[in-house]
């Protein structure tokens, strides 16, 4: 992973000192609420329903065990022993004291971590594929580019006060696991002949106006990445609306101008700065890549190791389930990636305790070269596990509550913190997740349903990505009461699509039953091995609507 040198450390320590000063000025009454709001948000600090919330940046989701242990310690010493993994591959603390935040930042800086630009109207933490570097379908490792983007965007003097927040995601694989089509900028690594480059998508996003991004360039040469991003953000900074925060995202500008005209303006701006200082040199690319080299893999006979694994699986059904759902192919023979599930029934999705953070660090050290990755679906990946040690890993993961074999199934839902924590929410989301987990607790049934993304948001800001869930649930407020709208047919993958609203909303108590009716219809209607999403695409919304809203008797 990327390691800081003295210059990174100097910049980060300057930031800690700057924020300490800003906090002191605020506490002394020298900074207004309004001014401090902007400054603290650019440092990931919210004032939430119950307490401040501090969002820590985990660049492209990558963490080492030292960092995990430090996060565990911070959650113990400064919080209530909990942390929350977010859909942007970050980590949040929900109960820190404002006065302690500068000390927390100093603790983070010691392990090369920070909270820079995890909120606010600036370029946010860049996200990527949690299987970067090991996925068999990878065109090139996205992490060197992500790190270059992190550095370019950190404290960017021109872009710290954009019209609205700005999110970039990079995918290096054929399968998009970074949801690039629902980002302000999606960067898809691609090849033309043998040259590496990027397809650039712009103007995707969720929130109250969900939009799928449009391609404005099919192939951007590798060296041009940063000048091109700078051109996009510059056009947006100048032309994006600032009169209405709900119309200020780049997606609205791209829609207003049309993607062709927006792209034309970007090209024009880029031509001016194309060969400027930010153009990536071969040395810079080589330097960035040098941080993401393969670990010291052992050489295995792939088929022998696979056979041994199958034997273990045959002897232990629970292990076999976990193997099927929670492990992933690796490009190196004899290795697999695994996902630790943070979604056992009754635990808010993405929540972990301080002990669990320490346990992830121990598991990473013991099984995966000391590294772990936070995923967009709020789980944790250990990327480099020897197949021969999966059984041992599974047993240990189970002890820590991480081995629920539900990855990719209905109960592995994305869920925002909702009304229990978030001051923006219209409705609670955690109890809805729990009610669905309790109702659909039969693993055989879940496996029979197959891959199914259920996403829950407590309000239209869509932190729970309900627009791109195969099934989406949106909390709405009706005259002070919480109701839930059901949407079907969304996807954040290559075939990105926005879910459509099924019909009138339901009370919280009705939601599990409604989900049950939707799933029953799917099971009735599906063709052999057809996924929920494919069945929906084939038969459309109407049959689901009829089934759910049919009058009893």
């Amino acid at each position, binding site marked *: 992973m990327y390691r800081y040198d003295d210059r990174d450390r100097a910049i980060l320590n300057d930031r800690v000192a700057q924020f300490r000063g800003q906090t002191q000025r605020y506490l002394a009454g020298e900074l207004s609420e309004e001014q401090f709001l902007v400054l603290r948000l650019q440092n990931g600090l919210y004032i939430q329903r119950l307490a401040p919330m501090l969002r820590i940046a985990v660049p492209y989701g990558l963490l080492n065990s030292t960092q995990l242990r430090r996060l565990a310690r911070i959650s113990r010493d400064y919080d209530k022993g909990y942390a929350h993994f977010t859909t942007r591959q970050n980590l949040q603390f929900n109960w820190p004291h404002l006065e302690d935040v500068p000390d927390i930042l100093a603790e983070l800086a010691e392990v090369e971590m920070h909270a820079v630009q995890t909120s606010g109207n600036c370029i946010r933490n860049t996200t990527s594929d949690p299987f970067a570097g090991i996925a068999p379908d990878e065109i090139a490792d996205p992490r060197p580019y992500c790190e270059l983007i992190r*550095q370019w965007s950190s404290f960017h003097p021109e872009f710290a006060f954009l019209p609205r927040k700005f999110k970039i995601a990079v995918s290096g694989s054929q399968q998009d696991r970074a949801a690039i089509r629902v980002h302000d900028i999606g960067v898809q690594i691609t090849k033309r002949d043998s040259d590496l480059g990027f397809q650039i998508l712009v103007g995707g996003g969720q929130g109250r106006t969900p939009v799928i991004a449009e391609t404005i360039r099919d192939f951007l040469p590798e060296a041009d990445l940063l000048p091109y991003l700078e051109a996009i953000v510059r056009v947006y900074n100048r032309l994006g609306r600032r009169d209405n925060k709900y119309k200020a995202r780049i997606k609205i500008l791209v829609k207003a101008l049309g993607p062709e005209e927006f792209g034309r303006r970007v090209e024009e701006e880029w031509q001016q700065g194309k060969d400027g200082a930010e153009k990536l040199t071969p040395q810079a690319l080589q330097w960035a890549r040098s941080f993401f080299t393969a670990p010291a893999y052992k050489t295995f006979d792939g088929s022998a190791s696979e056979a041994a694994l199958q034997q273990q699986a045959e002897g232990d059904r629970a292990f076999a389930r976990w193997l099927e759902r929670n492990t992933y192919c690796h490009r190196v023979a004899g290795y697999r990636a695994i996902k630790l599930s943070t979604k056992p029934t009754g635990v808010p999705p993405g929540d972990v305790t301080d002990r669990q953070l320490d346990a992830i660090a121990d598991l990473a050290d013991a099984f995966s070269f000391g590294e772990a990755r936070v995923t967009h679906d709020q789980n944790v990946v250990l990327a480099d596990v020897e197949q021969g040690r999966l059984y041992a890993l599974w047993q240990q993961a189970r002890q820590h509550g991480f081995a629920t074999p539900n990855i990719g199934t209905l109960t592995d839902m994305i869920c925002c913190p909702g009304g229990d924590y978030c001051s923006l929410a219209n409705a609670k989301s955690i109890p809805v997740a729990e009610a669905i987990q309790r109702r659909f607790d039969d693993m055989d049934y879940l496996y029979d349903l197959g891959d199914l993304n259920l996403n829950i948001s407590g309000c239209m800001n869509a932190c729970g990505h309900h627009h791109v869930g195969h099934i989406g649930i949106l909390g709405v407020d009706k005259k002070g009461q919480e109701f839930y709208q059901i949407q079907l047919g969304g996807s954040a993958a290559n075939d990105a699509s926005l879910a459509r609203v099924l019909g009138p909303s339901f009370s919280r108590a009705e939601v599990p039953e409604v989900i049950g009716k939707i799933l029953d219809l799917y099971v009735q209607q599906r063709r052999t091995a057809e996924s929920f999403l494919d069945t929906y695409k084939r038969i459309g919304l109407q049959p689901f609507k009829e089934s759910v809203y049919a009058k009893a008797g």
Partner: protein
Amino acid sequence: MPKPAKPGPQPGNPSELIIDGEILPNQWRLLAQTAAGESPDIPAAGKVILPLRQWQAQRRALTARSDEIGVWLDSDEGAESIGAAAAQCPLIAVHFPAFADGRGFTTGRLLRERFGFKGELRAVGGFMRDQLTYLRRCGFNAYAFEGDEPLASLHDSLHDFSDSYQAGVDQPLPLFRRRL
């Protein structure tokens, strides 16, 4: 974006400001925008900063005084509205109607890097102390601060960061080029 019908908050013109790191008396008089069609009364002598529209209308007539005629740009008036003429300007002020309106950062950078502006680049309006480093890095060298804090206390904020990752007007090479 369409220009608002009503003029927004106008930039102030404090008596002292920070120029090139020093606290100095303000030698320029900044004229506010007037309603469309009207021309402000331009003082017969002395250094004066005109709103863009008046500057465009009158700068030829004022050629003899070109050393004492500056111009200020509102946040929706980009650097290209002055363009190549920037190189002959002694002073350009960029208005920040609110600290959250970040368009002026781009304007400053383009004036310096694209249009060859070498004169005094002055930030005016509602920016805040914590933006001084960013302003400096975007090419501003003068800060007409309107806040309550004494100017002497702002000085340190010009250098909140001792180094930077990306290129700026102050540092033409990004860190990845300087590292190797």
